[in-house]
């Protein structure tokens, strides 16, 4: 190394030479590399919003004249969701609890400038309201069949809350009426229109096959102990009216879900939503069910249906046998409600509760980077476990899986997308996500659990049972 050359680079010389520019700007290409890397990462990490594209607001917003039949607790939730849907004109509200349910719904609708008539009896409503297009039915289960058939025959499209009916005979009448009249009948299994569930089914399970072969499913809805639902004493329905509409008392009217002949118990109220997802995601109906249940905690005088039910289904899917267990407790709220689909390459944990959900890659499964870059999944995070004892280190255990979020945000009322799907179908812009045939399949699947508990044995399904 010659000192001369060395000095020429360190001793300040007058004027800037080319060499000085090279030395001065030598690290500038690194900034370029940084910018490229950053842009590349930004593009990769950008949320793809796959779910949002499935909920486009229709351009055709011609008004739909709607009646609301049954404005109790559930009906009120649906009514509030409906207020977010453009192009609906509520023309009638019907509820037998005139001084409370009916009044409350009418007040809300009037606030939103709907000019509607109120009715106590649905037959009177159907005979007087001649310009209705559709009806939303949110009455107790045992009324669903009569209400739905009457509305379909009055030439109305029907959105009926689940359970389709508390009896298969009732559900069958509803399917036959829908076919006979050619009107739309949507059953209120609202997860079928939830963008998170649609993403999981369409993209994760169907397109990507991300779970591999699904071998087991489990789900639950656990709720804490709750007292009977009461009512404001000044708003009691007279006994003649109660009797006319099928109730023995005000307590039975308010707590109809627990009574045989009126509802189906927690397995139907809660389980139906989730067991419907079992059928949907597995793309078939079960072969058999065995179940255990009972009224173990509450008084059998007020809780005729089982407060605790555990059911195990067996499915024969295209990929092989799947065993699915479901439990509903009304005495403990541990872990709330969710559905888990367990495959040999991953686990899908999903819940209607928008804060829950995740997909877990099995340690032996291929990497999911492709699905992350496509926006099917968020980037993985390691599920860390604080190990506090040597006893957990065991060759039989596999290491914890990576966890990915389901990258679909959903901030709307739970029922809104399903209602939108119904009204879009009424406008001829969409197909129903849960038409009567699917509602019937789910009713068959769920109602048999109560039979299995009753008979204390495994019951087989005949594939013909699911069809009419």
């Amino acid at each position: 190394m010659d000192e001369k050359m060395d000095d020429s680079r360190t001793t300040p010389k007058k004027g800037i030479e080319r060499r000085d520019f090279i030395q001065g700007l030598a690290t500038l290409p690194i900034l370029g590399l940084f910018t490229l890397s950053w842009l590349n990462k930004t593009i990769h990490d950008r949320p793809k919003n796959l779910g949002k594209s499935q909920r486009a607001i229709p351009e055709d917003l011609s008004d739909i004249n709607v009646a609301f039949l049954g404005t109790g607790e559930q009906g009120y939730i649906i009514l509030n969701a409906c207020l977010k849907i453009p192009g609906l004109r509520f023309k009638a509200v019907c509820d037998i609890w005139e001084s409370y349910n009916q009044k409350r719904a009418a007040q809300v609708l009037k606030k939103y400038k709907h000019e509607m008539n109120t009715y106590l009896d649905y037959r009177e409503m159907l005979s007087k309201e001649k310009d209705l297009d559709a009806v939303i039915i949110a009455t107790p289960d045992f009324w669903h069949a009569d209400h739905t058939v009457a509305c379909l025959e009055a030439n109305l499209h029907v959105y009926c809350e689940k359970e389709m009916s508390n009896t298969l005979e009732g559900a069958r009448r509803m399917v036959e009426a829908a076919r006979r009249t050619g009107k739309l009948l949507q059953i209120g299994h609202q997860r079928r229109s939830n963008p998170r569930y649609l993403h999981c089914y369409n993209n994760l399970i169907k397109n990507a096959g991300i779970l591999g072969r699904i071998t087991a499913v489990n789900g639950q809805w656990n709720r804490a102990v709750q007292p009977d639902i009461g009512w404001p004493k000044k708003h009691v329905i007279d006994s003649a009216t109660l009797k006319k509409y099928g109730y023995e008392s005000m307590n039975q009217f308010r707590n109809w879900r627990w009574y045989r002949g009126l509802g189906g118990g927690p397995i139907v109220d809660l389980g139906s939503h989730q067991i419907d997802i079992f059928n949907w995601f597995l793309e078939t109906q079960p072969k058999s069910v065995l179940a255990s249940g009972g009224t173990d905690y509450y008084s059998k005088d007020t809780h005729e249906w089982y407060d605790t039910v555990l059911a195990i289904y067996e499915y024969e899917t295209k990929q092989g046998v799947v065993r699915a267990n479901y439990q509903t407790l009304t005495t403990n709220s541990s872990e709330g409600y969710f559905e888990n689909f367990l495959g040999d390459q991953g686990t899908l944990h999903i819940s209607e509760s928008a804060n829950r959900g995740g997909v877990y890659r099995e340690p032996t499964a291929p990497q999911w980077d492709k699905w992350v870059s496509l926006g099917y999944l968020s980037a993985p995070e390691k599920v860390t476990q604080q190990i506090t004892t040597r006893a957990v280190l065991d060759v039989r255990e596999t290491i914890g899986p990576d966890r990915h979020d389901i990258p679909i945000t959903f901030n709307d009322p739970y029922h809104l997308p399903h209602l939108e799907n119904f009204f879009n179908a009424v406008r001829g812009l969409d197909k129903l996500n849960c038409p009567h045939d699917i509602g019937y399949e789910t009713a068959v699947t769920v109602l048999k659990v109560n039979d299995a508990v009753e008979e204390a044995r495994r019951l087989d399904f005949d594939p013909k049972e699911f069809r009419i």
Partner: protein
Amino acid sequence: MRIDKKHSNWQLAALVTLRVLVGWHFLYEGITKLMNPFWSAASFLLESKWIFAGIFKGIAGNPSVLSVVNVLNTWGLIFIGLGLMLGCLSRIATVAGMGLILLYYASNPPFTGLYYAIPSEGNYLIVNKNLIEMAALFVLLLFPTGHIIGLDHLFHKLRSK
């Protein structure tokens, strides 16, 4: 051919590489915060332990001070990162970088008996990434390279013209 008489070319390359890498890290930390509208130093500051915890938690608890700190931190990281990467005002950038990291370290030092809810990606006892990065900057302060490889070289030339 030696570029600088104080260092061999390999030594110079090593020092410039260290400077650019630390600069890259600062710059990306800053840009990530700038691009995330929900980012705030609040959760980090609220986790503060040790003798300065009161000061850091006080900052987190005062919305107007916190918003100033958020801006200063974000842009501080970006300017320090650019300074180190491009060798621009590199002495100031190096000292400022050390000061900023010292604040991070003092807020959440990995000392025995201090437990943090925010997970770290490694296991640390007294020495953590912050302390090592601060030491790296101290090396760069003692062996500056911006005036040899960097915009500071051009500024130096322009000044002496």
